[in-house]
């Protein structure tokens, strides 16, 4: 029985479409993660603060507005400012190939484009934490002393 992995799914910036974010949130829930969804129009500060309060292991950022080059690095910056150095930050949405290296250099560990299967994302998170997807379901049962 491992620790339950907690994931924050957030939408930085001003675009008003969160269908993709909701699909991912549901898929991650179904895989056995505890997913916190904070809704639309979040500033980097709001996202980092929610990640801190919820003590999440992963922050997943969904962005369609084209402002990813400014907003995503700022989220990482805000996370670091709060000492959340070990949080895995990933992103998805409409992000051109050529922007990905710069985002990775800024601390976004992986970028998932449209059409990525949810299994791929689950697999990526599991590999990062060195666990198998099938172990997610049993995790988090409160331990007795």
């Amino acid at each position, binding site marked *: 029985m491992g620790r339950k992995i907690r994931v924050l799914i957030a939408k930085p910036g001003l675009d008003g479409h969160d269908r993709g974010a909701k699909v991912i949130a549901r898929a991650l*829930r179904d895989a056995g993660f*505890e997913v916190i*969804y904070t*809704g639309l129009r979040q500033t980097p500060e709001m996202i980092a*603060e*929610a990640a*801190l309060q919820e*003590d999440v292991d992963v922050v997943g950022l969904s962005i369609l507005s084209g402002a990813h080059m400014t907003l995503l690095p700022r989220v990482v910056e805000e996370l670091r400012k709060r*000492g959340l150095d070990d949080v895995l930050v990933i992103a998805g949405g409409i992000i051109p190939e050529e922007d990905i290296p710069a985002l990775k250099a800024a601390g976004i560990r992986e970028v998932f484009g449209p059409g990525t299967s949810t299994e791929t994302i689950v697999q990526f998170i599991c590999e990062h934490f060195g666990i198998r997807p099938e172990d997610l379901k049993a995790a988090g049962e409160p331990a007795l*002393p």
Partner: protein
Amino acid sequence: MTRDPITLFERARAGDRRALARLLSLLEEGGEAAVQLSARLFPHTGNAYVIGITGPPGSGKSTLVNALTRAYRERGETVGIVAVDPSSPFTGGALLGDRIRMQDAAGDPGVFIRSMATRGSLGGLARATREIIRALDAVGFQRILVETVGAGQVEVDIAQAADTVIVVQAPGLGDDIQAIKAGILEIADILVVNKADREGAAATLHILRSMLSLGQPAVVRHHGQAMAIQRVEPSREGWTPPILQTVATSGKGIPELVEAIERHRAYLEESGEGEARRRRRIAEELAALTRERLWARVVHQVGRARLDGLVDQLLRREIDLHTAVERLLEEIQPCIEERDFPREA
């Protein structure tokens, strides 16, 4: 970040929010660290006022929590929020979405919001919710707002955790059936009809009034004939749950709600009911924890294989449940006696 419970607690008391967040995770995970932490923070608890908010999905609990938080912040009080959502019994996963409607407090250092999944527990709260409430209390939050799962009928656990329980209803949620279902209304200290600007609010209000019937038998028409229905629930001694109307999105009715909570708080203190409740609650929690630990000891002492054997015998109807329990108790008896009551030689 350290995972040492005592260091985390010291830092959280000094205002380190990251330490507080980590500490809450440790409590949620359970085990030895949680026991150590719980013991460390217990002497510092008992200062916060805990308000429970329950009601069916869609009644606006999160929005009401948001509005109450704003009201308390305006009065200069700090607010800790615990929002509970269900875990899937099939995957163990959970989607926690209460923060969506609690955005007003973003960036306010006087507010701390924590979402929790039920992780298999029924009754509207997670197993560790009371530990989380105590932790927020111990680090100094003055008001603690606890939002339950929202199944609407079974979350009576909140009555065990909160000083004042608010039951929220809204028009158009099939209220006439919901209201009649026992359990949820009986735990209400205050009833709120939220979304009171919507059509059907008057009907919802009327149904709740007749359910509580405020000292008078309600008169309803049945097959065209007027008939009196008897009060289902006698009003609690000295306190009749008020029914308020709010529009949480606009803040309408919130000052009245805050006021009603204060009146209830004063009633609890003056009548001695507050003291009696606190006593009942802690006794109940002591019993629950003891049951849990005893069971853990049984499992440890007799072993899984022996337990499985007993279950097989039960399934084959070779023994009955009470006999099985007797056997288990007999088997752990020597260990309890030896350990706690050494016999004289």
